[in-house]
């Protein structure tokens, strides 16, 4: 009797498993696929096998931020001057591994859009490596397009792709239209707001520069807070001196 009941429930579980499997709309990069194994490390495999894929992606992305936030003497181009603490965002250090780090994080967790947009922005607008940024974005977007999602998501990545493509073809000052749309999102990296503010500042569009830089006054990163404050003071001075001249 017990064995018969076990068999009945077992068959029911097999049927329900098949039924649930039909409704999958989103799958991450399979663990044993080429896409995964060409970027992953052993620690990633173990975490995924224990059911902690997102933790693995988080760890890799935090490593990416640590890597991108520090000076690497062996990655400084000849003739460039760099000081400790001044590496991030200066473009002086090449950060050769930035692309491979972020690709690893993104392929671990395909829902991690912030990792895609943040690194693509850094690669394109700080490191001036638009091609790598485009490869990263298209890798993510193509994967998402291949999923069976009823409503398209990950809109921000497409926006960044457009902005970077325009940057590559016509220069960064032409990409402001797309960057304006990107900064509306609450999870837009402060780096992008800083870059956009800088573009407006250089174009002497102080009103828009001030509007964008004000967004970074409450940034968690003290570096961006300081940059925004300094730039806003400078804008204020320029506007006052402009008014006095006129």
């Amino acid at each position, binding site marked *: 009797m017990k064995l018969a009941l076990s068999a009945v429930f077992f068959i029911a579980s097999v049927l329900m*498993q098949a039924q649930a499997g039909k409704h999958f709309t989103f799958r991450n990069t399979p663990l044993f696929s080429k896409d995964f194994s060409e970027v992953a490390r052993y620690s990633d495999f173990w975490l995924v096998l224990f059911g902690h894929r997102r933790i693995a992606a988080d760890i890799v992305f935090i490593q990416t931020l640590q890597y991108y936030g520090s000076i690497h003497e062996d990655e400084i181009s000849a003739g460039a001057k760099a000081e400790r603490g001044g590496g991030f965002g200066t473009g002086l250090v090449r950060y050769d591994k930035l692309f491979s780090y972020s690709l690893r994080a993104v392929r671990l967790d395909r829902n991690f859009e912030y990792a895609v947009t943040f690194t693509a922005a850094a690669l394109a607008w700080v490191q001036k490596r638009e091609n790598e940024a485009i490869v990263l974005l298209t890798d993510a977007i193509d994967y998402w397009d291949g999923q069976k999602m009823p409503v398209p998501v990950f809109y921000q990545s497409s926006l960044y792709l457009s902005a970077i493509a325009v940057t590559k073809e016509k220069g960064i000052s032409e990409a402001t239209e797309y960057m304006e749309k990107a900064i509306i999102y609450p999870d837009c990296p402060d780096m992008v707001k800083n870059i956009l503010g800088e573009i407006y500042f250089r174009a002497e569009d102080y009103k828009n520069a001030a509007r964008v830089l004000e967004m970074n006054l409450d940034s968690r990163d003290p570096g961006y807070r300081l940059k925004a404050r300094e730039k806003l003071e400078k804008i204020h001075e320029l506007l006052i001196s402009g008014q006095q001249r006129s």
Partner: protein
Amino acid sequence: MKAVYNVAKYTLLENARSKSFSLSVVFIALVFVSAFIFAKLSEVVEIRAIQDIGMGAVQFFSFLTALFFAVKVAFVEGQNKTIYLPLTRPVKRSEYIFGRYLGIILSAALEIAAMGMLLTILLYLKQAKFDSFYFLSYFFIFLKISMITAVTVLISLASTSQASAFIFSFLVWITGHSLGEVEFLLDEMSPAMVTMVRIFKWIFPNYTLLNLADYTAGRFMAAAGYLPAVLYAVFYVFAVMWLAAAVFEKKEF
């Protein structure tokens, strides 16, 4: 049914008094430490990291405690002969094993709820936004724990040592998470291998269907898939537990 309830109640009280529950304290420390470590990161990454590590810890610690209780009930009590006392009472062996199992998963539910509440409070203080997928993830963690507990009870009844029961249960946990990962290889496999993988998917708990904690953004499965996934876990538990009851019936202590 009353016997099952009484045994479950006794097991729940016994487990609640157990030192294993103090593992939750480790969890609290882990989550709070992570909250301080990630405070310098951007808000998006900080909240995401606290949530993921917190939820991972909820899952891992509840897995460990459930494993410990299941091995204790099905193996250690037989070894220590403490199982004689309850079996002398007017309670069927199947009622006893179902009651014990129910007690263990109720303990796990309590542990998940307590740790989940703590994590939710911490995330709320960090001004995180919650959606239904976040709360549903805890329920799916509970389903995963229920499945592995049933499997561990069965393995422990058939094992000759406590260590082997732990090792096999760990292997089942890992296999359950890797089943969905090999699916894309099916097209390249021989028919015999495909059949084998399919049979493995039926026998082992397929956690790919229940690992919502890895997809808290909600891009996981269509709404129509959730009920079959829950029923799959429930039916699987009953299949394994009735088999465990059959083994327990024949077991000589």
